[in-house]
Every structure is written in C-alpha cells, then in structure tokens.
C-alpha cells in the first residue's frame, strides 16, 4: 500500500512541510547488530575501470557532429556600463555563427541577466559567441572590441557596513536573555575573526552541451542535480519536462557550485535553438574562477559567557557576510545549536558588494560559523584553564535547541573519546617542548555539526531478467562521491546476490526515476533506502518463483550470496536456476524513501584534532596530522567514506592555510582567478590523516541506518588548525588563511 502523508523535509537546514509518498512495504531498518555481507565492507567503485582508462565521458568530452563552441566575454570591471560591442565585426569572423548580448531578447525567462549591460561583478557575462571552433569563437569575442565605462563599486566590508549596504533584513534569532546572562557570567570571552572567500575549483569547470531538435531538448550538463536541471530547462523554455532529457554520466566534481542547469546550459540551449546546431559551452579556467561562485568571506564576532566550572550561559554571535548583491543566512546555525546554552543570539547580515554572488560550497555557512564559534570555545577553555575537549563534553547537548526536538542519533561524545584516544590528546602539551628543528608545534580540536539526514522524494527501480543481472535504476548523479557504488552494495545486500550480479545506472533523467540533487549530504540517506525497498520487492518475488520451481514454501527459503537455501539446509541451488527460466520476462521492483520520523531532527556530528608545526621565522604553517572521527550513522562503504573524509580535510586545510581570493582594491577585480595563483593543495601538502567512524546505524532515520558524509569532514578542520596554531604559538590569527605574511604579523 502506498499512501500520501504530510511530513517535514530538510535540505541544508531549510525545513519544509510537504506531501510525501510512503510505502507500507518498506523494509524495517537493518538491526544494528545484524551482520551484513557486503554493506560495511570496503568496495572499490563500480565505475573504476571506466574512469582510470580514460573512457569516462564528462560533459566537456561530449562532441556531436556540427557542434558549435562558445566563448564568453566577461566584465573586466567590478561595476561598469557597456558602451560598445561590435557585433557586426564578431559575426564577420569566419566560423562565427551567433552572438548574444544583453540587447538580445532571449527565448527563456530570467530575472536578471544572464548577459549584462551593467555588470555588478568582475567576470560577469556580457556576451557569448558561438562558432565552428573555439578558436573562431575566441576571435569573435576579441572582435566585439568591448568598451565599458567604469561605475563606482564597493567591495570593502567596512565601507559597505558604514554605508549600510545591507541585503534585505538583518536576520536575528535568539532565546533567553543574552545580555543579562553575559553580564552575569563568571567568565567572558570575545573574539572577532575573518574567513576568506574560497573558490570551489572543481577540476571540471561548469559546462553544458545543448541540443534543441524539433521541440525536443537534450542537454548534457555538469550538474549536481539532473532533475533540477530538467525542471529548470522545461520551465525557462516552456517545454514539457518529458521532452527534456538531461544527461550527466560523469561529473568532474561539484562541491556545491553546480546546481540546476546553470547559465551555461541555458545559453547553450538558446544558441542551439537559434542555430539549429548542438552547442557546447564550457567555462575556461579563468571564467570558472571568476564567475562560478564561491564561499563568501565573513567577519564574525562571538561572545561567550560561562560559569567558572565551564558551563556556557551565553552565546552571542554577529556575522557580516560578503555575499555579493544577495544571499542566504545560516552562519549562526552552529552558534545556536552546537552547545547547551539557555541564552543564545545570532545576528546576521549580508552586505551588498560588487562581488560574484556566493553560492553553495561544501557545508556552506556552517563551516564558516563553526570556524568562529570553535575558536571562541578554544579561547574560553584557555581562559578557564580547562581542557578544550572537556569543555566541549561538558556543554554537550542531545536536543536541537531551536526546535527543542531530539536527534535521531547523536554519537558526538563517542567521537570526542575516540579522537582523543587516537591523537594522544591528553599528552598534547608535550608538543610545546622546544624542538630541534626550531618549529613550534601544537594541537587543537573542533566539533562538527551538520544536517545530512536526507529524505523523500527519492526513488529507485530494480529489474532482473533471464541473464540473472539485476539492474538498479536511480536518478542520482555521481559527482565523485561513490553513491552509485553504495547503491550497488545495498541492492546486492538486500537481494542476496554477489556484487558483480548488480549493475547501477544514474545520471540520466530519461528513465524518469527521481533522485535528489547531490547536495546537503542527503544523497545516501535519501536514495539508499529507496534502493533497498526496490531490492526487497524483487527478492520477495524471486522467493515466490523459487517456491514454484523447487516446490517449496517461499517462507522457508532465503536467497544468500546468489543461492536459494531452505532453512533446513536441504535445498541449496544457484539463483540462476530460477532467473534462467525467465526468458524474456523480467522481475521488477520499485522503492521509495519514506518520510522522516516525526518530531525528530537528523544531524551528523564529529570531532577533529589537528597538529601543526609553525616556522616562526618564515611564517610557514604545516599541518602534520589530522585525526577525524565522525558520526554518520552506518558506514556503507568504508573505502569510499574514508576518501570523502580525506578530501574534506584537505579542502578545510586549504581554507585555513592557503585559499583566498585576493582583490585589487583599486578596481575590485580578483587578482588570482587562475590555477597558478589561487593555491589549491597538491599531493606535497598532504598531512598524515587518521580517520575513524563511530559506526552506529541510525535506525530511527531510515531503513539502511545511514546519514550523509559529503559536508561533515570539511567543517571542523579549519578551526582545529587555527586552535592548533594558538596552542603552538600562544597567538591567535584574527583572519584565515594562515598565510606566511599573516603568521609573521601575528607572531610579531
């Protein structure tokens, strides 16, 4: 039986009540102590051979007969007015087929842009040129001979705040009486820190290939959400969704920046519609770094009040975010949720600046908030003379305070214990002894909180035929996280088939099996329960059929590792004895993710410890070791999970040490929007990493017990590093990243 119920859904902390489809046939959650044959065991990714052999086709690799290539003209100024574009000259370049700028009436609707006459950030799109070759398209852009008048711009936080350039309302949330609690606290600390603008820098830039044929639209998009891309294209171009097909077989990373169709797909489709040719629009690296989004910079002031024993009595947080012209607000989430505190207040404002609009970057806003709150907690521990981990244990909270709701699971205390044990935390002061190499060493910790419970809608179907191969169809796109492998594992586990008898597909809207956007750490906890539901249905049918074939009672049979077995052991036959009789017939099953439990909040937790070595002469900071322990419910594939954590740690480390967009204050233009000067870490920078999970299934959340893992590992790393720096040097840098110049200045 399938029913519609009202239920709360969550995406990156935004809650919504919706009608949700639920099935009474959904399997019970796997019991925590039930041994599983495949799930929980290291499994190399299913698409490995395709990826290592160069056979994987990413959007940027799609090549179609007659395809046109697009080059973009971008604003060289933070704010300006276009005064001249020589379209005729561009169109006269041999091979150029079409030019679009802000004066064209496009066939899709857009609130602003996507081509601007008055750009409000450097790198904003002014015009695009489509041509037979990329070389011709670039020549066309040159021939446009842009002239542009500069207009006044603001990118400075202080200037913007003074002029009250605030986007919408200032957000304020609070509970209790923060001012009174602060005034009455035994101990108070106040800390103001800044966090940098960080660029997602997926190795495959944003891009799309659009092909408009007779009202049918096919679009390859490097996107984290094929279904979002499909509805966006359908709506914007007024085509029925079933006439739009979005394909993303392989995606070269996303990290939050690749939402929906994106401007590249919209313009590629528009150009295809005009020229009758397929059109490929891939950002070049400079365009990507200028105009694909960012984690916006913040300035945060955190005040904490506590009793002399270390019980928090007040948390007060003020945030200014350099979001561009508009954005959302969530930096105060950690201040409001991370620790037990009756009096808490978060005030948050987005400044209107002439910067590229910030967008989602792995744990958007929460990483920034944790980076400030966890440094303030460290200061509080130092002021109180309490072990920083003990201070955190002491203020542990097992409910979501803003809503008052309990968590579906929370193993944070176990994370603290484990990370302390692994890192040798209690002996960390030994690092402060002078060392022979003259480096200053120290250790710091930080806590992680994030949502990551997933939810409906999410669907999967499984079909098995005469060849005995079970094909799982999902609507998810694997941006590199390995969710398709996890889906293969869950299906094989539930079916009772060996892994190599199960194939998984995704990355294509055509089968119309809905999957959610790969974001918010929601894919695994959303999709895997649906896959398991589909597998359970197929297995039920197979057991029925086995009963017919072997003349046994289906209830007496099981399918284990590809063999039908009776409970008394008398029957033990390969499953192909049954599927082999199907001929052209198939056994099908479908599954859906049920509703989240009522009256609960689903969150992931964790704690990381970092050890740094600081060279006081040069200002160089090296991260020597990071220990990470996270609670993500059941770990489906430890191999993939550890790799996720390692990647998150490295991005977090780079946020703390090297990544920062620099702007020319006289022009407002980023000065390091390339890969040679925007420093993402290489293999030479990798610290030692020790990774563990408190592998306790969240049986209240969904039928596989898994929570998400995309965002959690990046969240605590920067604060842990900043706190380790403080431990090592006795100083706190008031801004990240800890570049050499900043370190030397801080130590002076």
């Amino acid at each position: 039986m399938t029913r519609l119920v009202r239920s709360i859904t969550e995406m990156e902390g935004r809650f919504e009540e919706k009608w949700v489809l639920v099935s009474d046939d959904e399997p019970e959650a796997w019991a925590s102590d039930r041994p599983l044959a495949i799930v929980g065991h290291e499994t190399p990714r299913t698409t490995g051979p395709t990826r290592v052999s160069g056979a994987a086709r990413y959007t940027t690799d799609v090549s179609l007969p007659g395809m046109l290539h697009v080059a973009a003209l971008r604003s060289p100024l933070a704010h300006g007015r276009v005064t001249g574009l020589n379209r005729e000259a561009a169109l006269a370049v041999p091979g150029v087929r079409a030019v679009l700028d802000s004066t064209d009436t496009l066939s899709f609707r857009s609130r602003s842009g996507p081509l601007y006459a008055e750009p409000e950030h450097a790198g904003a799109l002014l015009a695009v040129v489509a041509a037979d070759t990329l070389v011709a398209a670039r020549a066309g852009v040159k021939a446009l001979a842009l002239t542009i008048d500069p207009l006044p711009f603001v990118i400075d936080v202080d200037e913007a705040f003074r002029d009250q350039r605030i986007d919408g309302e200032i957000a304020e949330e609070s509970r209790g009486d923060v001012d009174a609690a602060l005034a009455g606290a035994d101990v108070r600390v106040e800390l103001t820190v800044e966090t940098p603008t960080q660029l997602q820098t997926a190795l495959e830039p944003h891009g799309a290939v659009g092909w408009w044929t007779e009202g049918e639209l096919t679009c390859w998009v490097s996107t984290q959400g094929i279904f979002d891309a499909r509805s966006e294209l359908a709506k914007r171009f007024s085509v029925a969704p079933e006439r739009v097909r979005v394909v993303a077989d392989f995606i070269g990373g996303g990290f939050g920046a690749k939402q929906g169709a994106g401007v590249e797909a919209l313009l590629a489709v528009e150009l295809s519609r005009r020229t009758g040719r397929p059109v490929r629009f891939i950002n070049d690296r400079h365009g990507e770094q200028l105009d694909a989004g960012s984690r916006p910079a913040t300035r945060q002031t955190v005040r904490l009040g506590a009793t002399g024993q270390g019980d928090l009595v007040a948390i007060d947080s003020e945030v200014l975010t350099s979001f561009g012209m508009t954005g959302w607000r969530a930096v105060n989430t950690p201040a409001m949720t991370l620790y037990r505190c009756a009096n808490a207040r978060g005030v948050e404002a987005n400044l209107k600046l002439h910067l590229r609009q910030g967008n989602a970057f792995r744990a958007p806003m929460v990483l920034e908030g944790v980076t400030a709150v966890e440094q303030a907690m460290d200061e509080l521990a130092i002021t109180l003379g309490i072990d920083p981990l003990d201070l955190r244990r002491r203020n542990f909270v097992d409910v979501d305070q803003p809503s008052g709701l309990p968590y579906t699971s929370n193993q944070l205390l176990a994370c603290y214990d484990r990370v302390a044990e692994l890192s040798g935390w209690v002996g960390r002061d030994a690092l402060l002894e002078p060392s022979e190499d003259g480096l200053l060493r120290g250790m710091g910790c930080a806590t992680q909180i994030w949502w990551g419970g997933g939810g409906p809608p999410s669907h999967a179907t499984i079909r098995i035929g005469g060849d005995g191969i079970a094909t799982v169809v999902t609507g998810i796109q694997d941006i590199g996280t390995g969710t398709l492998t996890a889906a293969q594992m869950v299906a094989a586990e539930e079916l009772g088939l060996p892994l190599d008898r199960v194939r998984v597909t995704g990355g294509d809207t055509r089968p119309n099996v809905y999957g959610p956007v790969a974001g918010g750490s929601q894919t695994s906890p959303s999709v895997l329960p649906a896959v398991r539901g589909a597998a359970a249905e197929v297995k039920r049918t197979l057991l029925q059929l086995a009963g017919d074939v072997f003349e046994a009672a289906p209830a007496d049979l099981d399918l284990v590792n590809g063999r039908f077995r009776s409970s008394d052991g008398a029957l033990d036959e390969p499953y192909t004895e049954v599927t082999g009789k199907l001929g052209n017939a198939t056994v099908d099953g479908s599954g859906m993710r049920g509703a989240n439990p009522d009256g609960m909040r689903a969150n992931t937790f964790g704690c990381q410890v970092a050890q740094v070595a600081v060279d006081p002469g040069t200002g160089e900071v090296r991260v020597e070791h990071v220990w990470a322990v996270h609670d993500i419910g059941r770990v489906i594939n430890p191999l993939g999970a550890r790799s996720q954590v390692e990647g998150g740690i490295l991005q977090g480390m780079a946020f703390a040490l090297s990544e920062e967009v620099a702007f020319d204050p006289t022009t407002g233009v980023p000065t390091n929007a390339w890969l040679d000067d925007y420093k993402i870490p290489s293999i030479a920078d990798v610290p030692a990493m020790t990774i563990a999970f408190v592998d306790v299934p969240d049986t209240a959340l969904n039928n596989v017990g898994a929570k998400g893992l995309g965002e959690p590992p990046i969240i605590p790393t920067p604060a842990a590093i900043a706190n380790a720096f403080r431990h090592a040097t006795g100083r706190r840098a008031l801004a990240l990243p800890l570049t050499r110049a900043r370190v030397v200045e801080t130590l002076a």
Partner: protein
Amino acid sequence: MVNGTARVADGVLESDSLLTMLRERLDLPGSKGACEQGECGSCSVYLDGVLVCSCLVLAAQADGHGVLTVEGLADGDRLDPVQQAFIDAGAVQCGFCTPGLVLAAHDLLGRHRDPSDLEIREALAGNLCRCTGYEKVLDAVRLALARRSR
C-alpha cells in the same frame, strides 16, 4: 603515432595544442583540460616517452613523434597495473584528474625502482586533484610498487 597507431588529424589549426588535437580532432578525450596553463597536470601524455602537459605543446610539435595517452595504457581489456592499483586503493573519486595522475604515477614507476614517499610526492605534485585528498593516491602508488616487487 598515437597509442601505437599512425594517425592523421584533419582540421588542426596552427594554434591548436596537442591537447586540443587529441580531444577534438582524434576523438581521444581521455586527457582532460582543467586549466590549459600547465598547472593541473590533467592533460598529461607521453611525448616520445617523456611526460608532458599536452596543453603546453603545440599540435604541430607532435607531428612525426610518438604520443601515448591514457587510452593507450591498457593492453586491450587488461588494465595497466597502475590503473588497477588506482581502482583497488580507492584513489578515484570524480576521476577528472585520474588520467593525468595515472600517467604521472606510471612515469614515476618507469623511472624509479623503489621511490620514497617524498619522491612519490615530488613526482605527483604537478597533478592537482580536488576530491580525494591524495591519501589514496599515495596508497595506489605504494600498492602498485608492492605488487611489482612481488
């Protein structure tokens, strides 16, 4: 010669890089172009046995020379041991950097009998990966080395 076969590319422009020729004219898009400025290594190929960034080499410079790309590394269906080690060690996430990293690791193993961790890091430092955190890439190289010495 590309991957052991004589190839003639049509429509190559004077300014085309070797990378562009491989990807756009010879239907060999395994080599990737994440920066086209010699910074990321995703375009790595062998040119006469020497590892180069194909985005920095003009197509014309490869005329009459031997090019080996990631597509030519496997022996039919049998993956090169380095490729297999990348799979088994879990060194691949999105995979966009992988063709370049696999070739760089292959090159290192060809040049070195028993590279130290430092030498591995040095050899692969020109290949950027945004997903994996590189730890499993190191594991993959060590795995390939261990298998070879067996």
